[in-house]
């Protein structure tokens, strides 16, 4: 792979795809650059879709800014359908075929559809992933539905619940687990967010699931829960996770399954036999990579920050020539969520933590920084309305410094280490 590439193809006209394209140009790549997208839209930003776009604040156009010198060709509204590693080509849904010297796969994820296909197509049943989804759901919310039922105890569910309350729409949030957001934030912080949601008028139901939906003339009118309760509703949002867009890679010889597209530490895609697929890289939600901050455990991180960072690393490595000049993808996962007026941020991955300590502030104040430990090491830190303190913990997490970092300090005489 030492020859300098002349043609680079990016599959996924997304945050990751655009970030890679920008970095390629910044690094002096002057050849042909093509971005392929299955949606008709140029790359756009998703985080505002569950918040200000639904609420109708500002513009709904979240197209990402593109520098004038990008000189990229966009092939939009057509999905990639087949990868041929030996011919080094990608076939598109319109029958065309793109040759590449380097390929970036950033096909991301899609919303997991509601499992019952007849219920999934009812009027008033939504998922939220793309711009068109946000436009449809936003129109429904602006028309003031009687009650919104949200299914799913993740961040999208809570953010949409928050938006509904901002719009003064009654909302029921159904969470399958006993504590919401526990995988991402631990039970204490997840429980705190649940409390805040209830105070803001969300009818939060834990360990609750839908048994069936009821419709009249193809329109949702009510749901019945597993415990038998019936709730009248004309708007349901299924926020039940995502599926990775890897189906188009079937038969190509790369390692791809529901967990993601397997790549190495340099974002190079691996073949089924474990060898590197020459010239093929991956980034963003679809990529599954060895995380150096977790003993190289394989992980797929579905967050904005990783999409951009991984795409930039992949871009640099595409131009590196050989592996000795490549850069390891060592991004420390991070994310934010805004809901009920609070800003929640996390660095590192808290899933699997065995200990937790509030370092600044207090749970009762709803303003704090907390650190997470695992086997005596610091693995993550979270903030609620205290974002300025959070970056200070990144170095400790990268070093996997002893947990807790400090005990019995004069300003923290009663530092309490608890279960997360």
């Amino acid at each position, binding site marked *: 792979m030492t020859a300098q590439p002349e043609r680079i193809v990016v599959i996924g006209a997304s945050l990751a795809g655009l970030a890679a394209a920008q970095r390629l140009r910044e690094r002096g790549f002057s050849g042909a650059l093509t971005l392929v997208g299955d949606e008709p839209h140029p790359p756009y930003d998703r985080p505002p879709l569950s918040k200000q776009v639904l609420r109708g604040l500002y513009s709904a*156009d*979240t197209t990402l800014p*593109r520098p004038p010198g990008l000189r990229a060709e966009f092939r939009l509204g057509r999905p990639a359908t087949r990868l041929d590693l030996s011919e080094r080509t990608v076939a598109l849904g319109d029958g065309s075929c793109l040759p590449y010297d380097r390929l970036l796969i950033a096909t991301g994820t899609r919303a997991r559809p509601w499992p019952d296909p007849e219920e999934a197509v009812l009027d008033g049943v939504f998922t939220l992933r793309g711009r068109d989804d946000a436009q449809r759901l936003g129109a429904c919310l602006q028309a003031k539905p009687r009650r919104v039922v949200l299914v799913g105890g993740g961040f999208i569910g809570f953010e949409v619940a928050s938006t509904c309350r901002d719009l003064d729409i009654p909302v029921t949030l159904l969470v399958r687990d006993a504590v919401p957001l526990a995988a991402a934030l631990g039970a204490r912080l997840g429980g705190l967010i649940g409390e805040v949601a209830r105070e803001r008028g969300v009818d939060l139901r834990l360990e609750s699931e839908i048994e069936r939906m009821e419709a009249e003339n193809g329109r949702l009118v009510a749901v019945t829960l597993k415990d038998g309760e019936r709730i009248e509703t004309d708007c349901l949002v299924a926020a039940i996770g995502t599926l990775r867009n890897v189906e188009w890679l079937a038969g190509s010889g790369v390692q791809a399954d529901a967990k993601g597209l397997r790549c190495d530490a340099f974002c190079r895609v691996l073949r089924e036999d474990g060898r590197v697929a020459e010239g093929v890289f991956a980034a963003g939600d679809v990529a599954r990579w060895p995380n150096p901050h977790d003993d190289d455990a394989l992980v797929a991180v579905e967050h904005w920050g990783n999409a951009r960072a991984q795409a930039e690393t992949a871009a640099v490595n595409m131009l590196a020539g050989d592996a000795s000049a490549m850069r390891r993808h060592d991004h420390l996962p991070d994310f934010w969520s805004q809901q009920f007026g*609070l*800003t929640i941020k996390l660095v590192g991955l808290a899933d699997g933590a065995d200990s937790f300590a509030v370092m600044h502030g207090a749970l009762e104040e709803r303003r704090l920084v907390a650190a997470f430990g695992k086997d005596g090491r610091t693995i993550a830190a979270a903030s609620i309305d205290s*974002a300025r303190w959070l970056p200070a913990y990144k170095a400790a997490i990268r070093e996997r410094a002893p947990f807790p970092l400090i005990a019995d300090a004069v300003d923290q005489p009663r530092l309490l280490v608890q279960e997360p």
Partner: protein
Amino acid sequence: MKVVVDLNRCQGYAQCLYAAPHHFALHGREALVYDPSPDEAARAEIERAVHACPVRAITAYPDDTAAGEVA
């Protein structure tokens, strides 16, 4: 114009609110909301916001549907 803010970086210093009060706002203590597609007329204000951000979280480019595309 098109605007995006890296909200991992944003720490709520609120300088963008002073620079471009019609296009950036805080909801609560530090939840930043902003106009992703402000009118071209706001360009000077938006550029002031970009420069004022102490953590360099704001990216903005002029709105041009053909921006960055091959002719």
